[in-house]
């Protein structure tokens, strides 16, 4: 068992990681501030509308007061809007991730075990397609097929109109509806989250299953597998007790990185499925050139991304000290 051989992360490496995290975040913020300064866009114009007199537009430039000021779209504080939108995106991303893991990992293992047979080829095709398809096209096609033609899923949106009041506050619908025992809401929220989660999860599915396959294949080549086989261990046991735990760490890092990159994909998926998350907020703000909101969303999403990367790096260092520090 090579699960946790030794946690030999020393103090210096720890500090090093934190410094890198800090520098990355700082660069991000600098980049964003730089963008706001050089942007020729006049955000205020759309607020006031067309007039014959010269009016001084109040919201002329990006204001970092109250943290990014007011949104042109909703007239709320940008940070407030983001706070409302984040749970929706997290719910969607988590659902997509669950789908990707529950289907992707078993598929990857199966493909590795049945290397070069039909199943393997099918999976590799699936992965190739997953990497080649544009996610907005896939969402459009999926909505067309499953909603319009087959009517398997409900209308785009997070909940049905009957439940509109429920999403006025930031909350995780699926969890809180179970906790409240509100079954109709739960069923509705579940039905609405399915199609976007499936589409969003497809890309991660391709990635995860491919990586699982790779890791399992790498493990299968190790000597201890042959040893175990010689000892007469049934393959299932080898799989369960040795191979999987060894791939677990690497897989967890892949999953974590995949989760972060889901945020990028969600910009398109949310746009098409009218899912009120941060991706939809970002694309709508782009449409109206609301620089405050665009840059605030960028920082939030990028910070999450950086944090995920940083956690992965830390995990690698913690759990596998053989990895060279490049």
């Amino acid at each position, binding site marked *: 068992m090579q699960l946790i051989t030794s946690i030999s992360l020393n103090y210096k490496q720890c500090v090093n990681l934190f410094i890198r995290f800090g520098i990355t975040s700082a660069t991000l913020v600098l980049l964003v501030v730089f963008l706001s300064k050089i942007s020729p866009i006049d955000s205020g114009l759309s607020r006031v509308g067309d007039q014959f007199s010269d009016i001084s537009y109040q919201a002329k430039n990006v204001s970092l007061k109250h943290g990014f000021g007011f949104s042109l779209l909703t007239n709320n504080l940008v940070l407030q809007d983001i706070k409302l939108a984040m749970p929706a995106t997290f719910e969607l991303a988590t659902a997509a991730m669950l789908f990707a893991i529950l289907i992707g990992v078993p598929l990857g293992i199966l493909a590795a075990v049945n290397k070069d047979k039909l199943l393997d080829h099918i999976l590799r095709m699936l992965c190739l397609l997953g990497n080649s398809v544009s996610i907005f096209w896939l969402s459009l096609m999926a909505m067309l097929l499953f909603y319009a033609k087959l009517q398997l899923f*409900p209308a785009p949106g997070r909940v049905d109109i009957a439940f509109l009041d429920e999403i006025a506050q930031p909350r995780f619908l699926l969890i809180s509806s179970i906790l409240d025992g509100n079954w109709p809401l739960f069923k509705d929220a579940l039905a609405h989250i399915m199609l976007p989660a499936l589409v969003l999860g497809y890309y991660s599915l391709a990635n995860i299953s491919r990586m699982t396959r790779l890791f399992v294949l790498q493990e299968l080549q190790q000597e201890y597998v042959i040893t175990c086989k010689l000892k007469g261990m049934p393959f299932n046991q080898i799989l369960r007790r040795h191979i999987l735990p060894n791939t677990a760490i690497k897989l967890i890092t892949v999953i974590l990185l995949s989760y972060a990159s889901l945020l990028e994909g969600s910009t398109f998926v949310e746009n098409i499925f009218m899912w*009120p998350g941060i991706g939809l907020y970002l694309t709508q703000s782009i449409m109206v050139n609301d620089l405050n909101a665009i840059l605030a969303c960028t920082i939030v999403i990028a910070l999450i991304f950086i944090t995920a990367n940083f956690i992965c790096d830390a995990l690698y260092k913690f759990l596998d000290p053989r990895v060279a520090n490049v």
Partner: protein
Amino acid sequence: MIGISISLGAFAKSADKQTLVMAQQIDNLITLDPAALFETAAQEYAYNTYQRLLNPHKDNPGQFTSDIVRTWDVFDSGRSYIFRLFPKLYFASGNPLTAHDVVFSLRRAIRLNKAPAFLLTQFGFDSQNIEHRIIAVDNTTVKISLSETVAPSLFYSCLTSPVASIVDSVLLQPHLAQDHGHMWLSKNYAGSGPYKLHAWQANNSLVLVKNEQNIQASKAKLAKIIIRHIKEPSTQHLLLDKGDIDIARNLLSFNNLPADTTKVSVLRNWLKYLALNQNNSYLSKPEVILAIKHLIDYQQIADTILRDEVVVNQSFIPLKVMGSKYNDFYQYDLIKAKELLATAGFEAGFSINLVAKNLKLAQAIQSALAQADIKVNIIPGDSRQVLAKFRARDFDMLIATWASDYSDPHANTVAFATNPDNSSASTSKTLAWRTNWQQPEFNIISEEAKKELDSQKRANLYESLQKEFLQIAPIIVLFQEVETSVINNNVSGFELGTDSNATNYLHISKL
């Protein structure tokens, strides 16, 4: 997975008969304060949830009706107005609606001085003189005195616009401290209209419910109206097809409408026009301007690429507004256009830029002018960029849309025909200013018509103005927009208004 979703069963389809679900682009709705809102969706909201002194007459432009005023009079040759309200009027909150609320609301709008306030301040009001110019003589009488004479219908038109909505002064009292209650009223409701605000989630949905305190509401059949913000026209189409919504307001293509639906169209007061910058050496020649007017096949464009979106109207006063005439002045005439260009010495054509947001129309103009060897180079932009270039006078040709602020011919006359000061320091940068074009007689006629008390004489003034404008102006009005909605056949009584402040929810019912 599929089994699960099917068993989740009836995703509640479009609701019961008392609830209407409408899909509309309401992303430009950023405030619910009637004294501050200016966007189309917002105006429609204010029209149905607040009341005003006067309403535009549905069929006769230039005439007015009212829900709350018993009688109104004008005297002192168009400078003083008296409005007598009905006695027992109430807000949705239960507070009585009196002349004091009317005066409070008008004064508040002027003091707040947001974008739409000019509709009132143009009559000479400011925060000092409203104390004695807009007063409540008693509980049911309002007296308004203007600083100079204007045609009464002009003043009445402005009173029908949402900025003159009557808000509940008692309800607003605790919030008046900083900004006359603007922050509070931006997210709340203090009105008396047939419907009242139930909930608003910005960029997501707007829910209205019937206001029992309102007298007209007793006729209303719908208890609840849900307006869902759906940006994509195709998504609206999809939802309408599945029955998840009853009305789709922003569809683009009207072929292959879903089964059991009907189109409802109305002419809006929005004009699409082509502006020719007079500081361009080619476009400043009158022959060129006239040639371009003859090169465009207006009817063909309206029948093909802009079908169901526009009708042909070449006058700067929209159809259905009082005084509109000569709407079909120019016809497509390639030979005449070429002759005109030849007289100006441009038979070989020339190159010119066109700034536009609507690329369908831009490309149509491009190919129209190409027939006379005029090479048009399209510079695309979104509405902000186009507006910025327009205001900066940084263009050769430009396509834009003008929405009248109110239904009186004066609104568009000022916009299109007047240009008091062509310098860059002008305080009135009208459309004519942006085109670098000044016609001093038009400024005079506009002022005259504004004050003319006799409606027939007034109409005549505008008629002759339109004719002259059509002959010499470098602003070519092309089309007037049509708003088309698609409604489910089980919905009846949906009336689209010419302006966004005339679409009425009162008579809608579902079978």
